[in-house]
């Protein structure tokens, strides 16, 4: 199962503190091994070219390095990641930012299912849409507060079991009058907040979710994250903040507190 390690000299070309790695033909393990060594060598900017499905990119990196990915990274991009800033010049697949602790993932395209699953920290910006179960069981801890900003829309179970953090759905792909399609939004949610621009019907929301109007604090939080989103993708933040946002919050901090009796 274990692949032969590739000697550093034979692959990448280095210049100062940056490096370009041609990922064509590399296995997941080979690519991550190169990344691990590049970071250990103190490199700060890493460019991955011709990425094609390699998984877990950035997973055990704990430095604030910048990684630019060209091509299509595979599942679990940045899972368990602790610090790097990844830009995907293409689409991300499933599990992007899975159980991430710190760092940033910017996707210049769309991302698949379970984007930001169980993330505890860091920011994920997806220009287009995300798949099913995005931000499921996202949490927060002390000063760590993850955020997932989605330019387009999301599929079912968005924010299910969400325990903390912020999700913003901007609905940019929706045509006038078109509604978000996700159902079971925030089912079992018991922390954090989802800001949604555009319309949803009540039946699309989980039983444990309440709808609130935004207050000044919400607008400040929204403004800051949407501002960042706009800078990444060269949009006008002002335009993105127009239109009606709703805030989805947990109705109960203990959604399942009344489920049980002592036997």
């Amino acid at each position, binding site marked *: 199962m274990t692949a032969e390690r590739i000697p550093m000299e034979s692959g990448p070309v280095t210049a100062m503190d940056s490096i370009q790695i041609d990922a064509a033909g590399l296995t997941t393990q080979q690519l991550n091994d190169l990344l691990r060594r590049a970071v250990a060598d103190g490199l700060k900017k890493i460019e991955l070219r011709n990425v094609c499905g390699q998984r877990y990119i950035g997973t055990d990196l704990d430095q604030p390095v910048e990684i630019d990915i060209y091509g299509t990274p595979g599942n679990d991009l940045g899972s*368990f990641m*602790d610090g790097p800033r990844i830009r995907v010049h293409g689409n991300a697949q499933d599990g992007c930012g899975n159980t991430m602790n710190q760092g940033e993932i910017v996707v210049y395209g769309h991302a698949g299912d*379970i984007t930001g*699953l*169980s993330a505890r920290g860091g920011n994920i910006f997806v220009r287009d849409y995300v798949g099913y179960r995005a931000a499921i069981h996202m*949490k927060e801890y002390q000063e760590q507060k993850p955020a997932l900003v989605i330019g387009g829309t999301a599929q079912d179970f968005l924010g299910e079991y969400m325990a903390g953090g912020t999700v913003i759905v901007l609905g940019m792909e929706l045509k006038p009058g078109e509604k978000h399609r996700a159902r079971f939004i925030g089912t079992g949610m018991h922390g954090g907040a989802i800001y949604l621009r555009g319309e949803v019907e009540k039946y699309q929301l989980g039983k444990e979710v309440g709808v609130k109007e935004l207050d000044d604090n919400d607008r400040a939080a929204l403004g800051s994250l949407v501002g960042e989103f706009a800078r990444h993708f060269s949009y006008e933040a002002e335009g993105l903040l127009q239109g009606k946002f709703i805030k989805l919050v947990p109705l109960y901090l203990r959604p*399942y*507190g009344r489920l049980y009796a*002592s*036997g």
Partner: protein
Amino acid sequence: MKTYLPNRFIVERDPARCIQCEVCVNQCSFDANYRDADEDEVRSREENCVGCHRCVLFCPTRALNIRRTPLDYRENANWRPEIIEDIIRQAESGGILLTGMGNDKAHPIYWDHLVLNASQVTNPSIDPLREPMELRTYLGRKPDSLTVEPGSLALKTKLAPQVAIEVPILFSALSYGAVSINVHESLARAAAEMGTLFNTGEGGLHRKLYKYGANTICQVASGRFGVHPDYLNVGRILEIKIGQGAKPGIGGHLPGEKVSAEVAATRMIPKGTDALSPAPQHDIYSIEDLAQLISALKEATNYTKPVSVKIAAVHNAAAIASGIARAGADIIALDGIRGSTGAAPKIIRDNVGIPIELAIAAVDTRLRQEGIRNQVSLIAAGGIRNSGDVLKAIALGADAVYIGTAALVALGCTVCQQCHTGKCAWGICTSDLRLTKRINPDIGAQRLVNLLRGWSLEIKEMLGGMGLNAVESLRGNRLHLRGVGLTDTELEILGVKMAGA
């Protein structure tokens, strides 16, 4: 609402011995003993007694005894008292009945129907007092074949990471938050002293126990509590928890009142919030997805640690185990229907899953048939009560066993099944600081070390008696087992012959 539940226990207080010292009042965390202010006398509220024996054992004058209430219902094999009282409880609460510990029902306990062999005349037994006995077990994926350098005989095959344990007994997953920090520390220290491992469970590892990382299995469960890079790197083995024997197929809810500041810091969630573990891991809906998390964990730790996958023993455990082995796991932990828990719906604890003995045999048989038994180590859990059970599990096909309840009993647990209340009078399954200090890690670790030492000595005696000098020689060696009082089908699944055959 007036309760129709009768008392379960009677507290007998001998007035001739009671010195009104109130030790029983202070020791009882269920408020079953109190001082009556009007009469200025220590009395009992028997409706609160759970039968944990804390007061009995701490009464300085031995004035107390606890007995089951003699209140009888009319005989009825169908409508037994427990069934009637569960209905009353639900009629008064409207909830899912929670309970703690493992299945207490009279499902067949196959350990009690299996007997071990011994040498007589035709091959000599070995005296462990004068000959070396090997209990060391290596956990991890073994290669299909080995190649060695001709001449030097150096190993050329690159081995997957292996973890040596000096006794084939590990401490089962008990999460911090369900059990107290002092229990975790007792387990960690005992594991370190005995050269084995303890399992964090799904609640993370307190920073002060990181120094025991070499003796720690770090669990990754659906809630991903406390899972961060330091945690993944500190342990010796990583374990993906898919399920547990006490509650196959469902998740867990640690109520907010058990999430103290320290528990919150270790789980990395805000204090006082419910810690909800969803039923599935939402990135695992298939064997392929499982393979992905296994690989992600290996990548995250640079292929330095074996990855274990723990499942509850269920009907298709053998086929699932095959998938787990093929997904790249190094270890499979199988937890049978008698496995314990800090809290589970009673109806699930008592009705879901299969006995561990049958599961070990089925999984071992299946993996051998497929020629992949070497690819995984098998750890059996759920109802291992003594060293005899350990050896029977190994003879059926396990590499090692997890013990949970037995370890807690060593710490004082009397299996009163009140874990879910968070009021454990023995200070084990609680985060109430007044109670948790009842476990002293110095004493706790010593009691656990003593238990493992005693079992190790017994295992050596039994192995020697069978003419074996290494526990690895017994693994899957079912000829050393015979069945008593079992049907042909049971014998066939267990892969053992009837005693006498």
